[in-house]
């Protein structure tokens, strides 16, 4: 009788305990960020593994998403004789939504899971503990640079995704389907607003980068130090990261474009 109820309670307590630990962990990271300014080399190395190595998948995905938008947009818009608006449709879809969201999902899958696995394995092989015994703070040496690198890389990746996507749409719309080149760009420029659309998109990508990286490094640091524990943590990074990004996207969209 009490079984399921008790299980529910235990799950709930466990959830809030993890949530609390996650926030304490975040504060610990943030407290160590200023010291990183003295060691930019550490962050640069991590931007390489978090940002540069994710670039290829972002470029390819951005191009294809842009091309699909061009194709679908053209088919729908041509029904209304409004092919000239293709540029607007592609650019707004990318800048406001798809750029930040798809990039964040890919980022959680590619860079986030790698971060979790790396940190989790470092914990499992006692590398973090070893550092501590060498009087080196692993939070400062390992976690904080990775967090900062992810946080900095995400907006850049999202911007690259959107930009390449706009050219992907251009390639299909103008190159293959014969939309007027001038109309494509001028309609886009006339209707995409720097403040409302671009800035808000960038803010979204910054928030997503923060959350996705936070989840990734926390899951790695909090992983049970066994092979199974690390593999579970990696899965959680991707699942929780994706859910957090999509949930936050709704909240942010409602706040930004709601009225």
């Amino acid at each position, binding site marked *: 009788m009490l079984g399921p109820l008790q299980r529910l309670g235990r799950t709930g307590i466990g959830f809030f305990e993890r949530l609390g630990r996650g926030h304490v962990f975040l504060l610990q990271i943030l407290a160590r960020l200023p010291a990183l300014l003295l060691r930019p080399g550490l962050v640069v190395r991590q*931007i390489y593994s978090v940002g540069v190595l994710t670039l290829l998948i972002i470029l390819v995905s951005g191009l294809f998403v842009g091309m699909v938008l061009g194709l679908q947009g053209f088919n729908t818009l041509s029904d209304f004789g409004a092919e000239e608006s293709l540029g607007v449709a592609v650019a707004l879809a990318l800048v406001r939504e798809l750029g930040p969201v798809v990039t964040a999902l890919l980022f959680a899958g590619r860079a986030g899971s790698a971060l979790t696995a790396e940190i989790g394995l470092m914990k499992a092989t006692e590398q973090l503990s070893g550092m501590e015994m060498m009087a080196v703070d692993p939070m400062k040496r390992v976690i904080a640079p990775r967090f900062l690198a992810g946080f900095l890389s995400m907006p850049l990746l999202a911007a690259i995704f959107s*930009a390449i996507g706009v050219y992907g749409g251009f390639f299909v719309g103008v190159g293959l389907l014969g939309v007027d080149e001038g109309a494509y760009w001028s309609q886009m420029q006339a209707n995409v607003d720097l403040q409302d659309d671009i800035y808000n998109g960038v803010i979204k990508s910054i928030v997503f980068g923060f959350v996705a990286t936070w989840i990734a490094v926390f899951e790695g640091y909090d992983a049970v130090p066994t092979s199974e524990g690390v593999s579970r943590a990696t899965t959680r990074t991707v699942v929780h990261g994706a859910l957090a990004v999509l949930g936050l996207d709704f909240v942010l969209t409602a706040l930004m474009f709601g009225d």
Partner: protein
Amino acid sequence: MKQSKAVEIAVGLFVAAGMAALFILAMKVSNLSTSVNGESYTITASFDNIGGLKVRSPVTVSGVRIGRVDSIVYDFETYEAVVQLRIGNSYDRFPEDTTASIFTAGLLGEQYVALEPGGSEDNIMPGDRIQLTQSALVLEQMIGQFLYNTASAEEK
């Protein structure tokens, strides 16, 4: 140390690419290049009906975009909508009897303010009010009028 140099170069390229993408989004995709920034002045115009005109709608002259709508308020003194137009400083020699009209781009497109210079010697000064205005054409009214006219023509 060779390896770390390659890493640094790669990161440098990555950051540069990201910045370039942001720049493209700002300059090529958005309206930054066509929007009025920095030096500008405002004039106002009153309309009986502004239709679907919105803040940030473009202001054009002979089809050239020269500014945007800054604010729209309703004036209870005159029972008219007062539209404030922000215009770039490089376009500062419009005659006093310039006409401001609200047009629609295409059949279903967005609405914009078109200025049409008159023949006066004196120029409009910043903060002035344009005297000659032409309200937006509202599609429903036009259709209504058309139907009324045909109906009355048939009666004869």
